[in-house]
């Protein structure tokens, strides 16, 4: 897994490549926590390069999203590929989160 972060106006774009599984979800969650700790409450998570996510990754997402919500912030998603889209669909995450085709579209809505 590889995480990169960039600022776009008031939002932070978090791009994740590779796999978020039980071995890497902790690192992913720590990355998100670091952004929150730095006062970034508007997160665009770009999963264009993500090949695989398991329930461990969804756990990190939901835990972060709950904290963001409590702070008036938000976490939205862009670029979900086939297998990741499937996981969002069967878990219901596809309907509790805002999901956009591209990072650009997501940034317009943030």
């Amino acid at each position, binding site marked *: 897994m590889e995480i990169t972060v960039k600022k776009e106006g008031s939002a932070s774009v978090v791009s994740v490549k590779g796999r978020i*599984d*039980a*071995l890497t979800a902790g690192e992913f969650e720590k990355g998100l926590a670091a952004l929150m700790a730095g006062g970034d409450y508007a997160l665009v998570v770009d999963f264009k390069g993500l090949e*695989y996510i*398991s*329930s*461990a990754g*969804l*756990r990190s997402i*939901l*835990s972060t*999203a*709950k904290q963001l*919500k409590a702070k008036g912030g938000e976490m939205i998603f862009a670029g979900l590929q*086939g*297998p990741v889209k*499937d*996981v969002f*669909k*069967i*878990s*219901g995450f596809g*309907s*509790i*989160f805002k999901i956009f085709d591209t990072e650009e579209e997501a940034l317009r809505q943030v």
Partner: protein
Amino acid sequence: MKQIPEYIRVPASMGSLQTSLAFVRFCLASQGIGEARLREVELAMEEILVNIFRYAYAGRNGEVEIACRLEGGGRALVEVADRGIPFDPLSHQDPDLRAGIEERKIGGLGVFFVKQLVPDVRYRREGERNILTLPIEADPML
């Protein structure tokens, strides 16, 4: 046709995840099962194994045995066995998928994914062992 080992036995700890998933992948790929289905089974297997690593032995050391039997016609049977506390995932309650972010409970998705991805999964307790049987067909579920 490539032979595959009947089983692999590894410690019930996180470090065994990659090797175990690679074993299942080799086995199913040798049956000609395609990438889309391989990924789904990989996800189901991760969920099963991580649960065994976390919960089955309640902090004590233990092992997991994974068997993979070729059934012919592009079908295979994967079996996962542990000697941990009795646990039937099929009797576990499904999560509420419609709850919003604040109400939604964290967790409970692992077992649910297994049932979605391998609908014919079976559980039995045999002596001291929990045994999950996963019949795998070539077509992706999703």
